[in-house]
């Protein structure tokens, strides 16, 4: 009989990069969503497609309703993005190894150029955070001048998702290496965390007990990891607060 702790131990990942979401202070202002789109060259899809579940947001803010008027309440805003699972369900199902686990960074990679577009990963993602390039969405000149040269521009038929701003991770590591030091906690952060006016998103090393994410997680007590019961070992912790 294997006990759950053992499963966790035997799963190869303890996580490296992680995020803490403070739902109590998330105001749902959508700054993270645009910041992410601008940083990662995410395309907009227009009214019809966005209303048909084809919007490409890598991060979305979920809110539900509780109760009936006048006792109605908005549930705490829940920013939902790729949870960078330690044992991701998207990874094994890709026939082309286009979504693979990065051994070096402990992230779920999406290798755009290897993707053939079977969309199995998206079906199998319990968080439904993958977006597919349904078309070559037009970004007329000169809008394309804004593209971030560090991030590949995707075309039709390719799956994409939140990368935890891996380009920023690489850049910070490269910089640190060129200066002969380690990356310092807080030296860089993801686009969403950087923009968040309420500082509801914190990003950092979860394997470093001294980092801000680890400290926050410790201080706030038990956070929720969504759908943890599936054994996905997500690396994003949510605090409902209140």
């Amino acid at each position, binding site marked *: 009989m294997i006990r759950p702790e053992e499963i966790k131990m035997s799963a190869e990942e303890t996580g490296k990069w992680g995020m803490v979401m403070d739902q109590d202070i998330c105001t749902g202002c959508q700054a993270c969503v645009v910041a992410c789109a601008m940083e990662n060259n995410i395309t907009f899809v227009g009214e019809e497609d966005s209303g048909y579940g084809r919007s490409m947001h890598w991060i979305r803010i979920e809110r539900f309703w509780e109760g009936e008027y006048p006792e109605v309440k908005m549930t705490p805003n829940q920013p939902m993005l790729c949870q960078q699972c330690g044992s991701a369900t998207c990874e094994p199902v890709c026939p082309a*190894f286009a979504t693979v686990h*990065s051994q*070096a*960074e402990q992230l779920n*990679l999406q290798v755009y150029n290897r993707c053939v577009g079977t969309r199995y990963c998206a079906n199998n993602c319990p968080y439904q955070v993958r977006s597919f390039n349904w078309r070559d969405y037009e970004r007329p000149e000169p809008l394309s001048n804004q593209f971030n040269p560090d991030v590949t521009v995707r075309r039709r038929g390719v799956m994409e998702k939140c990368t935890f701003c891996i*380009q920023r991770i690489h850049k910070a590591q490269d910089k640190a290496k060129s200066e002969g030091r380690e990356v310092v906690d807080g030296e860089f952060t993801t686009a969403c965390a950087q923009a968040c006016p309420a500082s509801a998103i914190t990003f950092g090393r979860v394997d470093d007990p001294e980092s801000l994410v680890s400290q926050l997680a410790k201080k706030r007590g038990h956070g929720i990891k969504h759908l943890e019961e599936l054994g996905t070992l997500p690396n994003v912790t949510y605090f409902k607060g209140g």
Partner: protein
Amino acid sequence: MIKRLFDWLRQPLGLIAVGITLLAVFSVAAYGISLTQQAPEQPVQFPHQTHVAFGIQCLYCHPGAAKGPSAGIPAQAKCWACHNQIAKTETSLLLAPLKQAVISGKPLEWVPVAQVPDFVQFNHRAHIAAGQNCENCHGDMSKQNVAENPQVFNMGFCLDCHKQVAGDDHEKLVKLVDCGTCHY
């Protein structure tokens, strides 16, 4: 009528004619496709050889290689700094486009030689810092006139070297063959 045509085509001469026609169509198509794959000509037949022979270091003109992802093409001002002191600049046919560009203030349009696809995030700095020399990838410029790639920069080329460099160091190998190291 058509039957006669078919009959004619069936005889050896006809078969040869058909063959030649097919070959011609195929060649034209192949040539057309190959045209799309050919790089345009460089605006200046830049002699790397000569510059290297003068003892100019690669990093003098391409300093970005040591600092960041892109090695860069030197600004025209950099070319001109030396060339306006060289008498030959006035007369050389080869250098006319440079002179023209400097006078008109229009940049020369160089054609990139060493290219990786845009889904590859390549960083020169890391490679130079790891002790790689320019010629390991770009070939010996002291023997080249107009730069040409000594090899195709495909994933096999990258990986071969990465694996070799990593050797038995598992941690290094993990980093160097990780998809996310180059593709994001």
